[in-house]
């Protein structure tokens, strides 16, 4: 407060203002305003240009989201709880009924194999007969010699 009393307020009004200060200040203010406008214009131009960084990042996000969804869908499809194959579900719940069908299937297999075996036995008989006749013929040739 004491320092303020020492100040000569009357003299402050008498300080000299340099010439052209106001003009220079106004020019500077105009320059700053123009620069601000330019930066704003550049910012709006960059956001509207196709292939700009922001649009590219958006595309990458969309593609990655789609890929994640397909991956999840793929894993869910592989999850066995969610897969129901109607053809590989038991036809019968009662083991006794299933047993009858299993026995029928085994009997069919046995029958089929036995049919083949009969034909093989028949073929074996024929070959044995032919071998015996050949052997007998050779024996008679030996005796003749």
């Amino acid at each position, binding site marked *: 407060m004491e320092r303020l009393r020492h100040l000569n307020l009357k003299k402050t009004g008498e300080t000299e203002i340099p010439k052209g200060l106001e003009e220079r200040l106004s020019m500077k203010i105009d320059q700053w305003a123009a620069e601000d406008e330019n930066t704003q214009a550049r910012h709006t131009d960059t956001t509207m240009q196709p292939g700009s960084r922001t649009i590219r990042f958006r595309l990458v996000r969309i593609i990655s989201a789609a890929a994640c969804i397909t991956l999840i869908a793929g894993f869910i499809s592989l999850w066995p709880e969610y897969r129901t194959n*109607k053809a*590989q579900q038991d*036809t019968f719940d009662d*083991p006794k009924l*299933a*047993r009858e069908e*299993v026995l029928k299937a*085994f009997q069919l297999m046995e029958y*089929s194999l*036995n049919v083949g075996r009969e034909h093989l036995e028949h073929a074996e008989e024929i070959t044995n007969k032919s071998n015996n006749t050949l052997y007998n013929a050779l024996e008679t040739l030996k005796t003749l010699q």
Partner: protein
Amino acid sequence: MKRIIVKHLFSVLLVFICTATYAQKNPFDKFADSENLKYVYVSKQMIGLVKDLHLPNVVSITNYHNIDELCSIQIISSGKGSIGELKSEAWSIIKKENFQPLLQANSAGFKTHIYCKDDKKKCFVVIIDETKVEMTVCVFTYDCQLKDLHIQTTTTKCNSHQ
């Protein structure tokens, strides 16, 4: 940008390849949806229950036809008038999947065919019993290769056409 897209596409392709390789099915599964044919499926779990089921005066099937290696049994039989459908589709599957013939016999009007196929860790044995009126296709799926099978049969004749 391109690398990121390529990475994502590669991951998607990998998922689809996994689903494709996992989607190996029995070619005879399609008969399950047929309305004119009789389709019976017995799974390994049910075969295990049947194996442990001991009924009086009934033949036991504990050590019968490699039952421990048996994965599933499918029995497809035609009804009256549907033999044509089963015949054409069954033979087309056998030709397409390259089943190898084991036995073909024809006796008293009954045609019997046995085909087999090794598929990685499993093998399929298909028995086709055919007459003029009806047809039965029996598919046995084993958890082993054909060379490891030792099918035992009895010497008595079994009449499966009753």
